[in-house]
Structures are given as structure tokens and as C-alpha cells.
């Protein structure tokens, strides 16, 4: 899941980016609206986290620009403006969610999970497939009701595959997710995690589709 964060405050933007990366999301950070526009044209983000108080291009203007392009990407507004009028303007301006600073990252994460659920039209907060149950909030995986020991990297890969059930996830996308740990992204890193997951979940749980990536079916 690739997220775009548009936040002009360096410390806050960096913090949100790093924290979400540590939680296994792929995050791009831009500090002004114009750069964000370019990124939105190039990449299909699953979520935009948007600060309203931006220099040169106001957050609401960017939001309108996104909606004018008939782009349905969920947008979560984070702002210091907390009056009812501000919140209404944000939500009516096309935002899907509204979070007032200062906020807890756990709440931001929970709201991201909720948006994910809605996006994938899932009622349950758990990601289930066959005998495997993944809890995104608790960051745990169970196989046949028994807790399974998986590393954080394996968890991130599995979650991404389960979120995109039936659709192939490319090796690049998975690389991007693992980037947060600052490790050298080697061409075979993803392969190693897939290999480990197959060992734990069964050889046929993850299917390789040559030229497209991996998927669960």
C-alpha cells in the first residue's frame, strides 16, 4: 500500500513518513502542493494524507484539483484548524477523513486501516484467506487458529498480498514496502521473505505469476 504524505513541516512530515514505513507502508513525502501534483500524476496512491496549511498551494486547492481529475483516491486531511467550519470545509471539499493536530499516530494508523477496509470492501478488520488470519492492528498472523511466528518484513509482505487478494503484487511494490528498514534492497530480498512465508504457510499459499509478481488466490 503506497501512501502520499503532503506536509510542509519537515519534522512532522518526516515523522509520519518514517512511522508509517516502520508499520510496513510505502510512503512518499512532499512538502508542497505542486510537487504533490506531479507525484499524483505519476503514481497510483492508495491514500493521500494531506496537510491543509501548505505554502504556495493551499491544501484545499490541491484537494479540489485531485477531485476535479475524477481521482477517487481516499484523502485524509491532517490540520491544525479544528473549528466545525474548518472540518466541514475539509470534508465537503472532498476529504474522506479529517484528523486534527496534534494526533496520536495509533489513531492515524487505525484510520488508515479503516480506509483500507472500505477500499477493499471488507467488513472484518481481519484479513482472512483459507486457514490464514492476519490482524493488521495487532500485527499478528494465525494459521489454523494457532499464532504463527513471522518477522515484521514477512508480515508486511503477507499483508500486502492479502490486501490485494487475487491481484498480483509486483516485486517492486514489495521492495518499496521493505525500504523503511534502511536495509540494502537486494534483488533477492523479497524472494527470501516469500520463500520463508511459503515454508510457514504451505508451498501453494503464495503463487508466483511470472512478469507480474506474487498473489494469493
Amino acid at each position: 500500500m503506497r501512501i502520499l504524505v503532503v506536509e510542509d513541516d519537515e519534522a512532522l512530515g518526516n515523522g509520519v513518513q518514517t512511522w508509517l514505513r516502520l508499520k510496513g507502508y510505502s510512503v512518499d513525502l512532499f512538502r508542497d502542493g505542486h510537487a504533490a501534483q506531479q507525484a499524483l500524476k505519476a503514481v497510483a496512491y492508495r491514500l493521500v494524507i494531506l496537510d491543509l496549511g501548505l505554502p504556495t498551494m493551499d491544501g484545499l486547492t490541491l484537494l479540489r484539483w485531485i477531485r476535479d481529475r475524477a481521482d477517487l483516491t481516499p484523502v485524509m486531511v491532517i490540520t491544525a484548524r479544528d473549528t466545525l467550519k474548518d472540518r466541514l470545509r475539509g470534508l465537503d471539499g472532498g476529504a474522506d477523513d479529517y484528523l486534527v493536530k496534534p494526533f496520536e499516530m495509533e489513531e492515524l494508523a487505525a484510520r488508515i486501516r479503516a480506509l483500507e477496509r472500505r477500499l477493499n470492501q471488507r467488513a472484518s478488520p481481519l484479513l482472512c484467506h483459507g486457514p490464514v488470519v492476519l490482524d493488521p492492528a495487532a500485527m499478528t498472523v494465525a494459521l489454523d487458529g494457532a499464532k504463527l511466528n513471522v518477522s515484521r518484513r514477512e508480515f508486511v509482505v503477507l499483508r500486502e498480498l492479502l490486501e490485494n487478494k487475487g491481484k498480483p503484487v509486483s516485486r517492486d511494490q514489495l521492495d518499496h514496502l521493505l525500504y523503511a528498514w534502511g536495509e540494502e534492497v537486494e534483488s533477492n530480498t523479497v524472494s527470501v521473505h516469500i520463500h520463508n512465508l511459503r515454508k510457514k504457510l504451505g508451498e501453494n499459499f503464495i503463487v508466483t505469476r511470472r512478469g507480474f509478481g506474487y498473489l494469493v488466490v
Partner: protein
Amino acid sequence: MHVSLRRRFLTVMLSVFSMAWIAATAGIYLDSFHETAELLDAELRRTASVVMGMSLHELEEELLSRGTRTLDIAGYENVVTSAEAKIAFQVWLANGQLAVRTDNAPLTPLPSTTGGFVDSAVGNEYWRVYALVDARTGITVRVGEHESVRHKMSSDVAFRTVLSLMVIVPIIGLMTWIGVGRAMEPLGRLTDQVARRQPHDFSAVGLKGSPREIEPLINALNRLFTCLKLAFENTRRFTADAAHELRTPLSAMAVQTDVAILATDEEVRATALNYLKKSIRDMTQLVHQLLTLARWDGNVIDLHRCLLNLAETVHAVVSKLEDQARARDIRLTVTVSAEPLLLADETAIHLVVRNLLDNAIRYTPVGGQVSVEVNVVAGYATLHVADTGPGIAPEQRERLFQRFYRAGRSDGGGSGLGLSITQRCIELHQGTIEIDSADGGGLAVTVYLPLPKTGIGGRPSAKS
């Protein structure tokens, strides 16, 4: 001690009325006394005539029948009972014999002059006497009246007048009391209106058909409410803005703390801690500036004015900012064309110079130049700061002084309060600040600070 207008009005009314009343009573008393006296005198005269008429008739017969002009019967003394107790009379014959008298008249002749009135004392009684003499027979009629009786009658008349006035006084007092109360009623309603209003209600007060006397008070109140409303809104906006400005660094601190807790990698944690430190520094500066503004925003200002060499202050600030400029490869030049001495608060002026130089360095691109000039122009010390930065469009310059406004340059850091504080400090010194374009497109800020009027102005400086 609060004075009751109603009581005061009533007091004035009643004292004026009482004085008028006393004067009127005295007048009426004197007047009625005079009138009564005339009436009584007329009565005396009439009585004398009647008595004379009757006496002549009766006595003449008596005298004719005796054929003598004198009535010399010893003990002949006719005493009649006075029909009206207040009037006494004596009828004297020409030979000095008392022919008739009323029982309340003395035996001695009442003192009199012929054909006139006399006030006199007989024993311890005061009489007013009228005497009438018949020239033919020599009969004298003396009619007298006790003065005390006359006084009593006059007093009675005066007393009745005074009594009627005494009834009127309390009525007038009561009516005054009620009338003043009525007149004060709009004031009471106005008081109610003001007393009932909520603390943050600054709408205008008004009375339907308010008296002209209260109108100025209402207008003054409404003017005050308008001022209060403006001040209150300013404060509220400022508080809201300040809260808004504090939220972002707070969020950043929270997030970076979370990252530091979550990170397993040392490098990620170190980065988070560095950001945390930076956020704390930003927030400290913001809080410091908010406090500075709060201190200098009020009406009670604590300026410690002393003689200050502006050029020295500039040098002091420059020496502190040199490192910052060097780090960004910015050339910082100072020109001292004159050395003005100011009568100013050192902290405030230092803050002005530092804020302006700090801004210039902050927004000038790496390798640029910031030039400062101190001079004296027409009674003003001037501080001119020009940079080679991007400058600010004329339409944005007005907003520069708005609190928290950053002219779209948040990347340079800063709270957006610096210029507000700078402007306030300059205002406190009766100075002005102007923003213009520098030669070459950068920003040029000029501060004018009035020189003290005591003659200790600037002196030309050799060094530059």
C-alpha cells in the same frame, strides 16, 4: 457615599418651596394683618357713630327735660353690657362726666385724640381707641378695642392660609418623588440591559424613546462596546492562531517520539531524536515570541529607555549572526553613515535589528548578500536592511505584518511572529517601518526611529 439624585432633587424642590412658602406666609400674614386692621378701624368708626347717634338722642332728651347742660346726678352711671365683647365704649359728657360705658371699658377715659385713632396702654391693656366729639353738646364717644383681639384675628387669617399651604407641601413632595422616579426609569431600564448581558455580548444597547439626557451615556457605552468587541476579537484570533501554530510542532514531537520508540535501527532513531530536538527548539522559540508579544501588546508598557548607539547595537547583532551567514555563504556588510543616539529600550531595539537581519539571512539564497546601513535622515535614525533574496510581491507586503503570516516561505523556518514583534517594538518607539524592493529584486526594509529632541542627535561618522 452615593448621592441619590431623587433625594437631592426632592431636597432642592422642598427647600426652594419652603423658602417661597415662608416668604409667602410672612407676606400673607402682614397683608392680612393690615387688611384686618383697616376693617376693624372702619368698624370702630361705625360703632362710634352709632353710639354717638344713640347717645345724643337719649342724653339730649334727658338734658332738655332737666333744662341744664350738665348731668350732675351723683352716681348716674349707665353701664351697658357690650354686645360684642371685643369692643368697648365710653360716652363722656362735656363736663367730664362718664354717662355710659360698656362693662369692659375702664372708668378712666380711654386716651384719645379727637377724630382719630390712638394706640395706647391703660394699665396693662393695650387699646386702639377712636374718639368722636359732638361739637354742639360736647359729648365725646370713645370706642376702643383690645390690640390682642385685633392680633388674634389677623393671626387667624394668616394661620388658615398657612395651614392650606402645609397640606400642599407633602403633596408636592410626593409628586416630586414620583415624578423624579418616572424620569429616572429609563436609567433603570438601561442599567437592567447592561446588567443582564452576557460577558461576551458586545451588541449595542438602546432604549426606545430614551430621554435626550441619557442619549450621550448610551452612545458612550456603545462606543465602548465596539472597542471592547474589536479588542476581544483580536485576542481571540490571536489565541486561535497561536494554538494553531503550536499544534504542528507538537504533532511533530509526538510523531518523532513514536518513531524513536518504534525504531529498531539506530540511525532511524537518531534521526527521529534530532527532529524531536529541532521541534522542541522551534516550539521554544515560538513560545518565547508569544510571550514577547504578550508583554509588548498590552497598554501598560514597560520600556526601559536609555541612551543607545544604534550602530553599536547593529554591530553586536551582526557579530552574533556572522556564523549563521557564513554557514550559508552569505556576505554580510555593515555601513555606518552616521552614529545616531537613541533614547530607547535596548532589548526592544536589539530584537528589531536581530529579527530583520535574521529574516534577511534566512530568506537569502546561499551565496547571496545582506547589507545593513545605519544613518540619520531628517530627525530620524534609520536602519536599512537589504538582501538579494527573492523579495516579496507588493500585494503581499501588507500581510507581512499579520501574525503568523509567512509569505509562503515556511521552508525558511520561523514562526511568522518576528515581523509582528518587530513592528510592535518600532511602534512603541514612535517609529515606522517600510518595506520596499532592493536594487536587484531582493527585499529592502527601512526602520525610522525618532531621535531624542534634547539635541543629542547623531554625529557624522568617519568609519564605514
